[in-house]
């Protein structure tokens, strides 16, 4: 299968299930909201070393609970307990501290974790809650939903945060590899892919700028390491290890995608791959573990509308 002169390998990406939460961070202007969201989702590239994976969703919310500009954040953890620990730390340190912000749950779910109900203690007894009860939601014909907000006094007024936030099963580790003929062409293609995926709701790209260059393989020659550099895809090692790189490939970049649903991850992969294909890109591949680790397998050719072989 070839798209815009780029060969699509007959392979698949392997993704796995994590717990997901979705927050809306609002502020007096969009810049402040984005700054807080960027801080909160910093150092959240890989669950292996960061405790969670998190990022800012591309599409902005059309409405926010308090009517101010806002951005959506997705966070993924191994369990609801892990995710709660991470969110309490990150919202407490990076959102509550940011000027004018508020933080709301944006993933209604039967399963919830504590957020504001943990952070409220920062109020030193002066915190107060406000409850949007079922009757008020019914009066609004569903335009608002029941929730309990905590209002924590801070030095510029109040930090408002949902007492609890919803948790659902999410999909992490959707990916594809861009194999380019030059490093510059590869980077350009990766940027095009990131921009295209930015229009897909319900997904994030947890790595810096949405692009990962240090792809990993399972295992290492060092006993303490569970993962190490993806040697078959390192161009500088092609002469000394079994390589996966054709002769005309000079660089590889990886796009890793986490999403609320497998369908969302698939849509993001398709959008990203189509955008990445073009001049200077020899191949599109994907990372997998032989189907042994992940529950979700995304075969590249079928999701691009072609048949697998």
């Amino acid at each position, binding site marked *: 299968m070839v798209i815009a002169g780029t060969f699509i390998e007959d392979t698949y990406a392997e993704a796995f299930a994590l717990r997901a939460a979705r927050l809306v961070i609002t502020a007096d202007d969009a810049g402040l909201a984005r700054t807080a969201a960027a801080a909160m989702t910093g150092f959240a590239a890989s669950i292996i070393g960061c405790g969670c994976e998190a990022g800012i969703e591309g599409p902005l919310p059309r409405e926010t609970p*308090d009517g*101010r500009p806002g951005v959506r954040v997705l966070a993924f953890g191994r369990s609801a307990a892990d995710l709660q620990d991470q969110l309490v730390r990150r919202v407490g340190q990076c959102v509550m501290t940011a000027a004018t912000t508020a933080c709301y749950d944006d993933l209604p779910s039967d399963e919830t974790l504590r957020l504001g109900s943990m952070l409220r203690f920062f109020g030193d007894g002066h915190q107060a809650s406000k409850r*949007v*009860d079922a*009757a008020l*939601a019914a*009066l*609004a014909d569903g335009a*608002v939903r029941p929730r309990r907000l905590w209002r924590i006094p801070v030095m510029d*007024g109040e930090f408002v945060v949902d007492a609890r936030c919803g948790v659902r099963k999410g999909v992490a580790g959707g990916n594809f590899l861009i194999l380019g003929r030059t490093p510059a062409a590869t980077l350009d293609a990766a940027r095009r892919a990131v921009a295209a995926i930015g229009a897909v709701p319900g997904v994030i790209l947890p790595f810096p700028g949405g692009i990962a260059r240090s792809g990993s393989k399972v295992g290492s020659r060092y006993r303490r390491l569970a993962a190490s550099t993806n040697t078959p895809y390192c161009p500088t090692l092609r002469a000394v290890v079994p390589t996966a790189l054709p002769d005309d490939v000079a660089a590889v970049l990886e796009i890793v995608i986490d999403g609320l649903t497998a369908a969302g991850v698939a849509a993001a992969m398709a959008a990203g791959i189509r955008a990445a294909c073009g001049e200077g890109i020899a191949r599109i591949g994907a990372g997998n573990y032989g189907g042994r680790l992940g529950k979700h397998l995304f075969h590249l050719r079928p999701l691009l509308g072609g048949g697998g072989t």
Partner: protein
Amino acid sequence: MSLRLRLRPGAAAPGPALDGAAVSPDCLGGLSPLAAARRSAGGAAPTLGDIFAIDVDGDREPDTITIEGDLRGVARLGAGMSRGRLVVRGDAGPRAGSRMSGGRLEIEGDTGARAGEGMTGGILVVGGSAGDRLGAPVAGGARGVDGGVIVVRGGAGAMAAFRMRRGTVFIGGATGPAAGAAMIAGTLVLARAPGPGAGALMRRGTVVVLCPFTPGATFAAAGRAPAHHLKPWWDALGRAGVPLPERLPAARFARYSGDLAEGGRGEMLILEGGP
């Protein structure tokens, strides 16, 4: 099946109010007009059929009861209701919606004293004005409104939302003395300046006043700020047809802490610049 009840002439004569607690979707929902007419009106009272002419109201959605007539002498309409919809075409007597926990009670005219007393859920909408002790505790009770929403488009008498603990009360017109007195928590929204003693001895909760107003001496100024977190309240009230200032979501409020005699953990938010 939806029912329509029309008060028979002379059935609610001056004197002690009739008990209308049996008129609610909980008691009459799903009954035929004949079965509904055989239901006791409570205690030694006659049957509902002796008081009301009952027929099917085909225009309404299921679980809706419509009641018509001069019902000022009928107390406790919709009392204890937990579901469905009860529409009162006209005025209602005292204690309408007493202890209701769900559903929707709409009174198109005025209502007597103690409407929504001891309410724990549901929606009570009064198209006219309410009497004294709107949403207050039931006799001997410790808590007033403990959940749900009361919307009064007109005014209310004394001690509205007395000892309110949770939920929302909106009053569109003038309010008598001691509105929100001894509030424990919850949100009381007043479109017009309340009478004396508003928020007196309140412990927690929020009293929002949408026009210029000076709180009592036991409230202390605590700055000016927007109240973005109240947007769900403005959205809900707006959808219920309550006329609110368009600028409300982004408007600034003067904040007062009080009642200082009770620790000052309650707040009064007064809209800057008026409506």
